[in-house]
């Protein structure tokens, strides 16, 4: 795999800085002044707690202070050349994350903390927790656990979390996160993960996949962080984002098949920090628009779904379309088998990958409609318990995935 290119200026600055214990990088365009102020506050508040450690902060376009300011400042800043324009939102985020990890590797850092560009996680408590998990608890990778919110991050709850857990055997709540921390040993491998060659998968960074496949003995941990990232959803179309994220995960699945086929069940990952209070439940949400999208999809996309899904799944979907809105409920096993079948179709190129990922959207909205109805009367905590049950159903369905993956032509339930 080709290594990420670091500019000459960054290399020179890295040589000037020497080594660092902890590199804290912002993965995305950010106001330099805001970043500097917040980073200085982190250093000041961490103070004696982590005084033995040398922190280096970096963000795209960061410039180290010169002259007296540099000598008087306790803040060490390394420049980070922004990566080449990567197109869509998540692809750009992953490109910045890789750049930060590459810089951490060049500085021989013991830990690298990657944070979102809204600076919500650039907080002394969060930094302290992540450093504790990596350096004191010897975790190779630490992922965040954001405050429970039953109507947020639904793509993660419905697809990414259960699928990643089922495949790689690690119970990570947010496998694709804006913020995470990695040990020095993992930085290089994470920075060198390859982009998918075609436009249907994007080039997202999946830290849990890399840790599970390349460093299976290295522990993965999680920390509770009281951070809410406000993703600017204006201009982002659901089917495009779903296609990009799911496509990338299917791409990783195809290339790591030799690893996940050997894994059975899942291991709990240690969690540190105090769980924040869940989001207050507002008014119940109307699931009818999502249900209408699902019904429209089932009426018009039957010819496409027939190429991907086996007959009994199609029969189940037809049964769902005949339910009243009050009765509508998509079983967990059905949704899991649908995602597995789409992953298999992605690998076999049954139809164009762009079309395949587009045809997943109405089915996903059907699941969302079912989920929204089911958790409308539950608290955020109870909804999390429901999602745990949901993820276990995916694990129980793994034998189906294995059989279909190994014998796609012969096995037809």
């Amino acid at each position: 795999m080709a290594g990420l290119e670091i500019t000459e200026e960054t290399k020179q600055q890295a040589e000037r800085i020497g080594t660092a214990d902890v590199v804290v990088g912002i993965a995305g365009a950010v106001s330099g002044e805001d970043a500097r102020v917040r980073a200085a506050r982190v250093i000041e508040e961490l103070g004696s707690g982590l005084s033995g450690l040398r922190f280096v902060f970096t963000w795209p376009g960061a410039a180290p202070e010169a002259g007296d300011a540099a000598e008087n400042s306790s803040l060490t800043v390394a420049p980070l050349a922004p990566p080449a324009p990567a197109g869509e939102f998540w692809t750009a985020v992953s490109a910045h994350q890789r750049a930060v990890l590459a810089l951490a590797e060049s500085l021989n850092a013991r830990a690298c903390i990657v944070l979102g560009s809204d600076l919500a996680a650039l907080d002394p408590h969060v930094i302290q927790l992540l450093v504790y998990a990596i350096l004191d608890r010897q975790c190779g990778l630490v992922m965040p656990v954001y405050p429970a919110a039953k109507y947020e991050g639904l793509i993660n709850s419905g697809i990414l979390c259960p699928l990643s857990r089922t495949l790689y055997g690690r119970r990570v709540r947010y496998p694709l996160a804006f913020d995470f921390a990695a040990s020095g040993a993992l930085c290089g491998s994470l920075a060198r993960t390859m982009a998918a060659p075609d436009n249907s998968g994007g080039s997202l960074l999946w830290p849990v996949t890399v840790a599970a496949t390349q460093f299976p003995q290295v522990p993965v941990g999680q920390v509770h962080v009281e951070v809410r990232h406000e993703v600017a959803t204006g201009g982002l179309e659901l089917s495009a984002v779903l296609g990009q994220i799911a496509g990338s995960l299917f791409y990783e699945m195809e290339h790591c098949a030799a690893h996940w086929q050997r894994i059975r069940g899942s291991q709990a990952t240690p969690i540190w920090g105090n769980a924040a209070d869940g989001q207050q439940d507002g008014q119940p949400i109307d699931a009818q628009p999502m249900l209408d999208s699902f019904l429209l999809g089932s009426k018009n996309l039957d010819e496409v779904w027939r190429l991907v899904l086996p007959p009994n799944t199609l029969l189940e979907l037809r049964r769902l379309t005949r339910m009243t809105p009050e009765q509508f409920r998509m079983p967990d096993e059905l949704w899991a088998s649908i995602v597995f079948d789409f992953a298999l179709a992605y690998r076999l190129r049954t139809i164009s990958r762009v079309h395949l990922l587009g045809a997943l959207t109405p089915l996903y909205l059907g699941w969302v409609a079912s989920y929204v109805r089911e958790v409308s009367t539950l608290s955020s905590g109870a909804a999390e318990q429901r999602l745990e049950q949901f993820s276990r159903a995916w694990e129980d369905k793994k034998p189906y995935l294995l059989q279909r993956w190994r014998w796609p032509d012969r096995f037809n339930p």
Partner: protein
Amino acid sequence: MWQQVEQSLQSSMGRVMNRMATLLPGVLAFVVAFLLFLLVGWLLSLLVKWILTAVKFDERMSRGASAIAEWSPRSTPSLLIARIVFWCFVIAGVVVGVSAFEAGTSEHIISGWILGYVPRVIGAAILLLAGNVLARFVSRSVLITGVNLNLSYARLLSMGVRWMILVLTGAMVLDHLALGGAIVELGFGILFGGIVFALSLAVGLGSRDLVSRSLEREAARPVEIPQPEKIHHF
């Protein structure tokens, strides 16, 4: 008189039998040449497929340009190339067979005509194939995008796009084959122009009232405060 009738019938039958006897070697030569090329083509296509599989051609192609995989996802690139090799030999077999047929009959009119027309047929076949693939791909794209945009008429739109591309392809193929001449061009022009004109009238005249009602509603509607999204997918 009957003897004369009998004699002329016998002489015509004799000429027919002679002609058939003259043609038979040519027909036999055609069949042998065609079958030979069919066999060679089949063996070579197997060999090509084996070589391409051995050099992992499909994997290399999937890492590079994905256009073939996207447009014809069920046929791997190596399978497509093997099929192209096979059908090239089949076409060559037909041409050589026709030449062998004419060598047996000492007439070269047909082969001259066929050899001149074969490039047009090949071009038309390629156009037809490309048009069908394009029609299928574009219509499916329109269908899926329309459904994701919650358009109730997504299927109708998709069918309309597919038929427009197929009609255009058909006209191009007939024009390339030089069949129908000006009738095809005129017919296509009338059909396509008629469709576009009908759509313009339908949209322009039919929606005139709708547009004015819509504008009136917009002007009369009170200012709405946008509600924050309650569901976040990402």
